[in-house]
């Protein structure tokens, strides 16, 4: 029943046209379900694939990993699933055409407003009640990850707010309303010059892995394979690295 509820929340269905193949050339519609943090990278890669194959139309649905897993479990007609959560993807792994493979990793860093007005240098500063700190709530993935980082460091954080998602935490840094937040490296990269990232040594072991798989029921399996190949190509890896991902 939890799944049903989430489906209602996720809302959208995915419409996929049938693949039309002419002389091995890719065509039709390719439908990719991807974690929200992949929005920028995947949109660029999709554009690239479309320009390489003029007959191909690439459609993305970007959403939270749990919502995506629910959609796949409910039989959404999609070709590729790229998740930000290994566990959630494992739950639907039997719907994949092959084994899921990790193509990117994300780690937590400290985000501070441009210029770092509160002189934050490391994780210990996030345990200082005198500073205004935003963390993700432990109920959401970035908060769970943050909790593991603080555990590993033996620190008790002193947050002023527990955000509902990583974007909300980052927004407060961008506005300068908090001194620091613990967010993903990719979020700092996407935020541009308004935010500075500070690497956290203690976060090295708390890694978010991004698995990717072609779905068994994919309406357009050739195009799906082509997209997965593009993600794993040098160009794809460069794009991921530019967006702040670590590569396995």
């Amino acid at each position, binding site marked *: *029943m*939890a799944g049903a*509820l*989430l489906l209602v*929340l996720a809302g959208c269905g995915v419409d996929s046209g049938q693949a039309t193949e002419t002389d091995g050339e890719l065509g039709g519609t390719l439908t990719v379900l991807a974690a929200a943090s992949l929005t920028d990278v995947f949109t660029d890669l999709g554009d690239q694939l479309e320009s390489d194959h003029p007959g191909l139309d690439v459609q993305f649905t970007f959403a939270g990993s*749990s919502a995506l897993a629910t959609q796949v479990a409910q039989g959404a007609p999609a070709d590729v699933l790229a998740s930000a959560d290994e566990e959630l993807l494992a739950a639907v792994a039997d719907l994949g055409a092959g084994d899921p493979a990790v193509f990117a990793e994300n780690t937590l860093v400290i985000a501070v407003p441009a210029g770092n007005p509160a002189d934050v240098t490391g994780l210990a500063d996030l345990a200082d009640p005198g500073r*205004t700190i*935003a963390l993700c*709530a432990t*109920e*959401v993935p970035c908060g769970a990850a943050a909790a593991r980082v603080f555990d590993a460091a033996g620190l008790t954080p002193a*947050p*002023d*707010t*527990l*955000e*509902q998602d990583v974007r*909300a935490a980052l*927004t*407060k840094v961008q*506005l*300068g*309303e908090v001194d620091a937040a613990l967010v993903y490296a990719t979020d700092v990269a996407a935020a541009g010059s308004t935010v500075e990232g500070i690497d956290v040594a203690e976060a090295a072991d708390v890694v978010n892995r991004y698995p990717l798989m072609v779905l068994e029921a994919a309406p357009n399996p050739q195009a799906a394979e082509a997209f997965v190949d593009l993600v794993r190509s040098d160009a794809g890896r460069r794009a991921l690295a530019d967006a702040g991902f670590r590569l396995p």
Partner: protein
Amino acid sequence: MPAPLLVPALLGVAFLVLPLLGLLVRAPWSEIGPQLARPGVGEALRLSLVSATLATAVSLVLGVPLAWVLARSQLRGRSVLRALVTVPLVLPPVVGGVALFLVLGRQGIVGGWLYEATGFSLPFTTAAVVIAEAFVAMPFLVISVEGALRAADARFEDAAATLGADRWTTFRRVTLPLVAPGVAAGAVLCWARALGEFGATITFAGNFPGTTQTMPLAVYLTLQRDPEAAIVLSLVLLGVSLATLLLLRDRWLGRGAVR
């Protein structure tokens, strides 16, 4: 009753009530006790009731005079003012929260000055919850009261003036009592909206148990990990708000019956 009214009315009721029924049917009733006993739930409920009530009080103090200006004054640009008042209604609440940061945050136009002068910063405090809720909910009150003022016979105010009452006395002793039902209805709407407020609150006030985590925030975060528990919490919020409104309604009806 004519069918063209009855059928849509029944559909309307179904549309409003069925989702609620869904919550009731799916609710894990056996878990209600343990869920309520969970640390933080009572705190979130108390904070919700207190902050919604304070937000309503703020809205009454500021909103009733504003409604009066919109309905009665000869001010030029009143229609523009009215449109501005309804902005929080159409603004996505999260955007409203960001807008509040820009004004009242420690980097904000007013908040920055306050922070420089006193070291006090509004975001992430209970006061910020009240402000966010009032920002989103006050238009409901203003619109209700303005409607009541427009519907009220302004000639009663003329009569009061010929009896020596200046405009302030007239407002207190004639206008306000005349539109009291409209003010009450507006306050109820405002309170209910404030109680359910999520977006502006979590943006501007953040989320921290005991200071800024109201029930809607608790429900949302619980939903991330434990949807069944979230249903229980939603029902608690719903039950408490319905009980409060019914209690108040009885009191108002009791008083209103003198008319």
